[in-house]
């Protein structure tokens, strides 16, 4: 098991009556960037939410560092070193940038530890440093996304879950963001990312899972996008 940081076994999950996942199998190794792509409604976000207990899990299990955390309440998962950046640039808009970061370290004891970690995080996102006292709602879309990621990094996670970080960002900002994700990964944080911008995400991915209708349709390295099946998955035409 040591080779796997996170294993998802035969996962079936959804929201109330609405089922979204029909048996997901996934193994994510420590230190890698794993990317989930696939057409809309394929259940990408639901996989991420299941790892963080934000939806209804019907069957299957989630193993993290050899421990079954399927039923673990959310705040205990944080202590295990998992943190999530939800979809849509979710920040505490009426709090300052500095306060947003402090909230990221809400469960951390010790002022100096929080200060040093904040420096580390801001080294990844330097342009937030000038904006520390600005309210989060005054930031641009890209800056808000970086603030949301920095808040998650304040927990010094081993596993960082990113839900469509590039949504609504300009291409240039997306490139910059993905560069930062690689830097963070180089320092030892495993990343599990759901992305709609498949080309940009696969460029930095170690392992790619292509989801279709709640199942893993394809799996592989960066060349998976060249697989002819991709066109059928995205644009239909399985020949009925």
């Amino acid at each position, binding site marked *: 098991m040591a080779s796997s940081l996170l294993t998802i076994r035969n996962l079936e999950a959804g929201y109330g009556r609405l089922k979204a996942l029909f048996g997901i199998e996934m193994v994510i190794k420590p230190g890698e960037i794993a990317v989930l792509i696939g057409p809309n409604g394929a259940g990408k976000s639901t996989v991420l939410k299941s790892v963080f207990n934000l939806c209804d899990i019907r069957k299957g299990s989630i193993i993290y560092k050899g421990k079954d955390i399927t039923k673990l309440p959310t705040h205990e998962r944080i202590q295990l070193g998992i943190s999530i950046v939800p979809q849509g640039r979710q920040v505490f*808009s009426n*709090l300052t940038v500095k306060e947003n970061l402090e909230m990221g370290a*809400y469960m951390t004891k010790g002022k100096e530890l929080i200060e040093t970690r904040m420096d580390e995080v801001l080294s990844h996102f330097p342009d937030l440093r000038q904006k520390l006292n600005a309210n989060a709602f005054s930031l641009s879309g890209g800056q808000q996304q970086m603030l949301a990621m920095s*808040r998650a990094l304040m927990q010094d996670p081993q596993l960082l879950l990113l839900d469509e970080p590039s949504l609504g960002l300009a291409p240039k900002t997306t490139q910059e963001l993905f560069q930062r994700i690689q830097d963070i990964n180089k320092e030892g944080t495993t990343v599990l990312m759901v992305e709609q911008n498949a080309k940009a995400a696969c460029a930095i991915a170690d392992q790619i899972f292509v989801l279709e209708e709640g199942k893993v349709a394809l799996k592989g390295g960066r060349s998976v996008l060249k697989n002819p099946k991709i066109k059928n998955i995205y644009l239909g035409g399985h020949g009925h």
Partner: protein
Amino acid sequence: MPSMSGLAAQLIANGIIAGAIYALVAAGFSLIYNVAKFVHFAHGSVLALGAYFMFTFTSTKMPFIPAIILTIGATCIAGEVINRLVYRQLRERKASNAVLLIASLALMIFINALIIAVWGADIKTIVMPYENPVFELGDVLITGVQIDIIITAVVLLLVLWWLMKKTRIGKGMRALADNKDVAQTVGINPEKMYSIAFLIGSVLAAVAGILIGIEQNLHPVMGVSLMIKGFTGAVIGSLMSVPGAVLGAFLLGIVENVGIWWLPSGYKDAIAFALLFAFLLFRPQGLLGKKMREA
């Protein structure tokens, strides 16, 4: 006969005194509204409980300071009992805000009736250990207690501001009020925060109850009218922010008192209700609030 400007100055002074009390009510009420996202209408009745506790403790001839401390303690217990026995049960059953609002009204009626049953319906006055001197500041007459009210309100509101801005718990409450889902992903426990918000709200209610109890006399339904004034002030300022609510409350106090320059004093309440009605219909986000998205 005091000169016109003297009368105006006195009305403004009365407005500030009333505003200070309304601000304490509005601060407690809007803190609970912002953090727990529902209208806790029984907040006024908790304030009345505070006043009556003070009456009971002071009538046992105990020294003044312990009476105050005991009153605050008893009111906080009442606040937490309400939060735990009623609101937490409703939240656990996924009750909608409408249900929480109706429950708070039922609590208001319950506490008012309890006060009448326990303390009786007659007017009560709190016996002050030392007399209450009247000062003359230019044309304005103001009593020692009224000065205490203004000072205490300002000090408490500054402490509240410091607590919300500078402490970890305060920021945690603001984060929860801002975005509950994200707050949970950073490990903030909503129920714990609601209890803290209720605790702070109860302390503010207790202090307001004590101050009003000393300055005016006590009657069982005093909480309801004060709650309406505090609530109206919060709506005028902005329900979305505690500072906004406090500003709105001071504004209401002044407008109400200056208003009786033209209208008979009986219409003080009518001014408040007219403002409440107008703001709820045409500017529900208040003076300071951002336009709420319609969809």
